[in-house]
């Protein structure tokens, strides 16, 4: 449980310490990739709570989502349509859905069982 959080902190500090900057033109790609990564992470947590977690699905989901998001942004730039907004919208909706499911699961599993015990 604590290991992922520890690694998240290590990654954050590594990124902040190395002082890497992405060129202005590519910041769109990175932002959407970050969004995809968050989506995958929350999806993984949800799957874990629902006891349907599969590491292969998680891994492929992470890389596939990130690259698809970046590709969509690239395609949008080429076509002159802000296609990355579609990705932002899709990932945003999924983020909220996943969060809602996680909340329900936590309430069901932890709090309600406690109340029932009382």
């Amino acid at each position: 449980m604590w290991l992922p959080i520890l690694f998240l902190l290590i990654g954050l500090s590594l990124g902040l310490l190395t002082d890497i900057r992405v060129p202005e033109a590519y910041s769109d790609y990175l932002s959407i990739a970050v969004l995809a990564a968050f989506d995958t992470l929350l999806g993984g947590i949800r799957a874990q709570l629902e006891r349907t977690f599969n590491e292969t699905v998680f891994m492929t989901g992470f890389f596939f989502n990130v690259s698809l998001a970046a590709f969509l942004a690239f395609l949008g730039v080429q076509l002159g349509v802000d296609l990355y907004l579609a990705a932002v919208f899709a990932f945003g909706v999924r983020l909220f859905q996943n969060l809602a499911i996680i909340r329900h699961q936590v309430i069901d599993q932890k709090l309600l069982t406690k109340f029932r015990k009382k």
Partner: protein
Amino acid sequence: MKKNSKWMVSVICLFIGFMVAIQFQTTTQPEVRDTRDEWEVREALQDEQKNQRELLEKIRAADKTLEDYEAQSSQEQLATLKESIDLLESRVGLTEAKGKGVVLNISPIFQEGFSSEQLYPSLTPQMLSRLINELNTYGAEDIAIANERLTNLSPVRDVNGMTYVNNRPLPSLPLTIQVLTDQPQKLKDYMEASQSRDMLSIENLDMEVETSETMTLPKYDAPLHLEILEETGE
């Protein structure tokens, strides 16, 4: 969760953290710091003070003119007005200008033996503009090109291959450029050693520079078109 998948999730988390950190760094702009040292700040301050002093002097001069107008009788006011109109006209170039200066004679160079055909060279607008800029840089006050007085609004244009100054075509070479200046000798020396001379030579043109103690520049006689000028919002 199996141990293997735990490590995998951790590595993904590492990736995510790294990406977020880079994104954060990219989006936050570095703050611009004032890196001037004391000396530079002092210089900037001095510049500003000089500016202020100049502005104050201008205000004082304008105030004085205003006071003069108020103090004088109507006839004197008229005289003052006429005087200032004359002054402004002479400054713009609407009157004849006399004084010492420099005469530039621009003539074609004929070289034989290179080829059978010999083109008659002409003074292009770009070349002329360059020459005018150079003259102004070295302290010219009034310029007349082939008896066309240059004002601040005088155009130098290419019209169907001809060079036009003040909307009139220049005569073919050789032509003279009269320049009024306070220090004719200095201007002459500058022009003798200037880049324009080389540029003119490339286009088969020769420039002779002579000083002259008395010269009369013609006045600019066409109406001034001031439609595109606007008042500043002061």
